[in-house]
């Protein structure tokens, strides 16, 4: 057996064991469902991606103009999901020190590269290519264009390599702590841009809408990978060159990423020089220390800071922006709906507290030695989230004031702030109650992404309904009186949310 395959086998086994041991019952059921073997690890993802791929490409079967935009968008999905999944896996590999035992052995970088690639493919990476290939095959079979199948396969493979490479680079960045504020700020922006990649899916349809050209997209987009691959299949010469260059570049990025990851792993988690300046220090006391601690941890971890800001602020903003735009263009008087929008925005943002629990895993074992109840932990985390996104409260207020006057601005700020804090407390109480009894079991993986998804879904439903209920008087009756009633309803709902959150966290008296 080649050395890289032995390394891959050990890494896969060890990571799987640790995931089972630490994730607890919730995760083990999932592992039983999909885990254990290359086929089973990729089966669920492959089915989901295949369904999506075929659905997206149905239009292209009947109209050639859809081939480039649809296969391009599917390629972006593969790249985004692949890079994010790889970055998360790499983060676990580094924080768990899975590669460190190998650093003292005579192992070459190419062995590591191949091992990581095969582990990535094993852990679900293979399923990523199903975002593109089934759709390409469908188009090829129905339209008799076999070049689409060929270029679609090349697109899927090139994007998989790039996703791994980008994932390695991003993942190997995140566990390091740096004193440099500029470096941390740049990393935070990089992560925000990465998370904001999803915005492309909103922008592309606008770009492509109404375009009557033969390829269905503007000419310049035909040269941009991954859109260049289907364009190459349609015989656009420049796109062929662009796609081949992109495939080569993807291999180089994979190589660089794997090399960087290996160096990060073998040099330990902290590459800081021991001669780093001591820095000034001061001992402070008081009730705000837990908040200061969490904010400091957040500030030191660009990935988590970006995640928190994204999920608490940018994510909900993306969702409500089109609604807001419609309301504004519809000349319906935005100020009438601002309190309800603030209520919805704040309510949905509360799920961002999830990231503060992942963040605290770094030293959570210490918390278990301290006289802390779960309710206290829950309140601390909720306050940290509120403090983190408090600048946004001001922006909401300014937007409100500009569009509807000072009173509307103030109402939006109050409903947003109160609901955010209340929702954060509710979410935090749910998570704190589910924290493991065993200190070492509180890790970044303690709560799965599925938990975050469920929380967000529940909030969309609950606070969507609450916001809808608040706008009913303004929608139905009009006039100043009904607007005031809508504002009052939104305020009452936000106060009730805060009360509920406070009550839940107060009721959590169990110790950690």
């Amino acid at each position, binding site marked *: 057996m080649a050395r890289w395959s032995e390394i891959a086998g050990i890494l896969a086994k060890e990571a799987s064991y640790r995931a089972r041991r630490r994730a607890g019952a919730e995760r083990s059921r999932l592992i039983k469902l999909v885990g254990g073997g290359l086929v089973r690890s990729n089966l669920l993802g492959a089915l989901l991606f295949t369904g999506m791929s075929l659905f997206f490409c149905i239009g292209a079967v009947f109209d050639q103009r859809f081939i480039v935009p649809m296969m391009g968008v599917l390629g972006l999905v593969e790249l985004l999901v692949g890079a994010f999944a790889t970055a998360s896996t790499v983060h676990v590999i580094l924080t768990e020190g899975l590669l460190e035992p190998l650093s003292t052995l005579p192992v070459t970088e190419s062995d590591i590269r191949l091992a990581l690639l095969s582990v990535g493919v094993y852990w679900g990476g293979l399923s990523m290519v199903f975002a593109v290939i089934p759709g390409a095959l469908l188009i090829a079979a129905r339209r008799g264009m076999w070049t689409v199948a060929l270029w679609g396969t090349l697109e899927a493979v090139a994007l998989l390599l790039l996703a791994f490479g980008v994932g390695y680079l991003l993942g190997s960045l995140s566990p390091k702590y740096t004193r440099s504020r500029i470096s941390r700020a740049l990393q935070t922006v990089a992560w925000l841009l990465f998370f904001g990649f999803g915005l492309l899916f909103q922008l592309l349809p606008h770009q492509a809408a109404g375009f009557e050209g033969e390829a269905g997209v503007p000419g310049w987009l035909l040269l941009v990978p991954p859109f260049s691959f289907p364009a190459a299949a349609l015989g656009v010469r420049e796109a062929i060159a662009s796609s081949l260059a992109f495939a080569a570049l993807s291999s180089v990025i994979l190589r660089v990423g794997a090399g960087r990851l290996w160096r990060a792993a073998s040099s330990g988690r902290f590459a800081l020089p021991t001669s780093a300046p001591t820095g000034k220090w001061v001992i402070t006391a008081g009730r705000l220390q837990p908040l200061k601690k969490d904010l400091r941890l957040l500030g030191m971890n660009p990935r988590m800071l970006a995640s928190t800001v994204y999920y608490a602020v940018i994510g909900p903003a993306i969702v409500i922006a089109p609604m807001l735009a419609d309301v504004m263009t519809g000349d319906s008087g935005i100020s009438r709906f601002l309190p309800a929008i603030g209520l919805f925005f704040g309510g949905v943002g509360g799920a961002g507290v999830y990231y503060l629990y992942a963040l605290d895993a770094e030293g959570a074992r210490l918390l278990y030695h301290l006289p802390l*109840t779960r309710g206290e932990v829950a309140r601390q985390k909720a306050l940290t989230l509120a403090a983190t996104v408090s600048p946004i409260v001001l922006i909401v207020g300014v937007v409100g004031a500009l569009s509807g006057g000072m009173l509307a601005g103030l109402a939006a700020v109050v409903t947003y702030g109160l609901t955010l804090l209340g929702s954060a407390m509710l979410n935090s109480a749910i998570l704190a109650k589910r924290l493991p009894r065993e200190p070492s079991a509180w890790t970044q993986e303690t709560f799965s992404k599925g938990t975050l998804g469920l929380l967000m879904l529940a909030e969309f439903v609950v606070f969507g309904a609450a916001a809808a209920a608040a706008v009913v008087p303004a929608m139905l009756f009009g006039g100043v009186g009904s607007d005031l009633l809508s504002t009052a309803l939104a305020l009452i709902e936000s106060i009730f949310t805060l009360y509920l959150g406070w009550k839940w966290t107060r009721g959590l008296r169990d110790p950690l």
Partner: protein
Amino acid sequence: MLSYLDVTKLYGEVKALDGVTVEFRSGVINALLGPNGSGKSTMMKMSVGLVRPDSGQVRVDGVDPSKDPVAARRIVGYSPEEIVLYESLTPAELFSFVGSIHGIPKETLKERVNTLIRLFRLEEYMGKLIGELSHGNRRKVSIALALLHDPRVVILDEPFSGLDPQAGKILKELLRKYANEGRTVLFSTHVLELAEAVADRITILHQGRVVGFGSPKDLKERLAAADLETAFLKATGLSEEVRELLETLWGS
């Protein structure tokens, strides 16, 4: 005082503790000895409610840690064997945080931190990230954090591991001072010479059971051993095993 009465703990089918009854008195230094996996850390974790006994009772100054861990953690200063601290914080930030959780007033906190960092010579590391510190310095921070709230019961799991001789000497003196002040002091170690030199009372644990208890002198006399190492091997029944292993490997 820290007491265990007929305490049993099972991890699956493995008995980590098997009917342990022992009392660690205040005013003396207690050492807990035992081979790897004998149940020492499990016993210590029980004192702050991190592990609950399946049966039996644990009491820390009258408090049951399994029923009221928060109250127990106010009494006990516990430093675990495996040091896990927030690596992106500085020791100063960590002291401030832990001090606030214990509700220590600012001036008292400053005074205690200053004393502890001078004792363990941590002044120059206070502004560095924990992640930048050596293993020994992290150990010092962990011990200092455990002592920050001036606990009545001090429980340190392998505290001397990784400490330089100077810090080791300081810690021994500190433990003696705490014992003289009437506090309960318990530490675990694998270094028998250290236990013999520091501890007034020794408890030997093997396969989850107490197999030896008393002062170093008592133990040696009772087991007819010239030194504590021999007494330890006799008490745990490992002396024969060691002899057979050496004979098998080296034929001597």
